[in-house]
């Protein structure tokens, strides 16, 4: 279980989260809905160990998190992956798609894993893998980001409005890939979206709960 209890976060004097609780169970898709600006993205960054909250507790499979960002233990950090809404803001523009997909191996000093196969599986051709972000569409770039997120086989995957920028077919394709990953590995998925129809279609098969923030 990935569990957040009483999370409070303020940016300067503006408090965006006040005592938020959320649990992401392995094996199912948990939905998270709420109006824009209600703090969903902030909470997802806390869950991915990328943002230290001002108050509250985060536990990953029973282990409480005390260090955040690069200071968090490698094991904890790689157990949670985050996929962002805007792929362009989430990648280094100098890297090729192949390098983006393989970044986690590098960052953790591991031998390069099956990044190419993973990327291929997500619909990226060898021809696309040598291109850089400005030479591909948002949909193609997001595919590389999903490959990157799944590279180290995380136990939890947080999808923060992952498909808002994408056309219907690419959306359906990426969600299907994540569902296949969940069934294969028993990972827990947090699906954050303001699209109610998408939320229903995505959470229904695994019977996971939907949490609403306001």
């Amino acid at each position, binding site marked *: 279980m990935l569990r957040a209890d009483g999370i409070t976060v303020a940016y300067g004097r503006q408090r965006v989260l006040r005592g938020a609780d959320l649990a992401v169970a392995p094996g199912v898709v948990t939905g998270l809905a709420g*109006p*824009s*600006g209600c703090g969903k993205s902030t909470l997802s960054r806390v869950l991915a160990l990328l943002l230290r909250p001002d108050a509250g507790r985060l536990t990953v499979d029973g282990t409480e998190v005390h260090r955040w960002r690069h200071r968090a233990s490698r094991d904890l950090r790689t157990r949670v992956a985050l996929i962002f*809404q*805007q792929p362009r803001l989430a990648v280094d523009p100098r890297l090729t798609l192949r390098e983006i997909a393989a970044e986690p191996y590098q960052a953790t000093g591991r031998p390069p894993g099956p990044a190419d196969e993973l990327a291929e599986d997500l*619909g990226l*051709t060898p*021809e696309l893998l040598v291109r850089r972000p400005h030479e*591909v*569409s*948002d*949909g*193609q770039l997001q595919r590389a980001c999903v490959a990157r997120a799944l590279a180290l086989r995380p136990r939890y995957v947080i999808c923060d*409005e992952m498909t*808002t*920028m*994408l*056309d*219907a*077919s*690419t*959306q*359906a*394709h990426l*969600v*299907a890939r994540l569902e296949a990953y969940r069934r294969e590995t028993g990972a827990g998925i947090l699906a954050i979206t*303001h*699209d*109610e*129809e*998408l939320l*229903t*279609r*995505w959470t229904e098969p695994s019977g996971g709960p939907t949490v609403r923030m306001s």
Partner: protein
Amino acid sequence: MTSSLTVQNLSVRFHLPGATVHAVSDASFEVRQGECLALVGESGCGKSVMAHALMGLLPGNATVAGSAWLRTGGAPPLDLIAAPERVLARTVRGRRIGLVPQSPAAHLTPVRTARAQLAEALRELGNPAPADELAARAGLAPEQLDRYPHQLSGGMAQRVVNAIALAGDPWLIIADEPTSGLDRPLVDATMTELRRLADDGRAVLLITHDLRAAEQVADHIAVMYASRVVSHAPAAEFFAGPRHPYAAGLLEALPSRGFTPIPGRPPELTDLPAGCAFLPRCDRSTAACSHLPEAGTEPSRVACHHPLERPLEHPLEHHVAR
């Protein structure tokens, strides 16, 4: 005489070292007064390039062919493709055509308030209307105009660029992905605003990858695939059962329908096949499809050798009646 924009056989090529990008190929369509035409298709298919071609905003490595006749009010007809830059800058951009750009936040100057930027647009275009009045029409309160771009939410920034696009009282509004990243209530508000503009006797060209947003406002739907307009139909007809296999696939991918992706991926625009570009992904293809299909004729045009005849089996659940 009603006003209109008539695009005929529009093509845009980008010349790169060692390659040519076929960004728009032989596109024809019309937008008439009081109407909204939605141009839909997946990212990278050429939608923004089409908008930029109409506005004369293409970079130097582009070549354009075809015509785009703008006929509005008492002004003599103008071919936007042949018109010199001087004419486009003085009489078209901002005045006869307003562009709502993709990613509004990136188009606002960070160090100046929304009011200063809107007032400047009004001044440049010689519009004596007060900024507050224009902002109010776009759904902004006067105090929101005093904010700097970083203090605006996505929805407010959208309304600011909408107001700026309307500063010169243009007849045609081209909105390029005006709802990307907005949540549903804001999408709904933006669509209502675009519809109102059309109902006021203007025309709207809505460019989007969001089929449901298109369904909310459009009178006609044009679908672009790999640089070509492959389908063009009245909206009600389209949503009841698109006849082009690609359009049908897009609709079936919606979460409210089958939620099934179209297999495969679109071709590279540097290496388009001679025949139908959808062939490798299409389950209706035959040998005939290696020849380019004709665009067909009004009112419902389908560039396909084997179009679907009947509506999809799934009845439309949420068609928005107007």
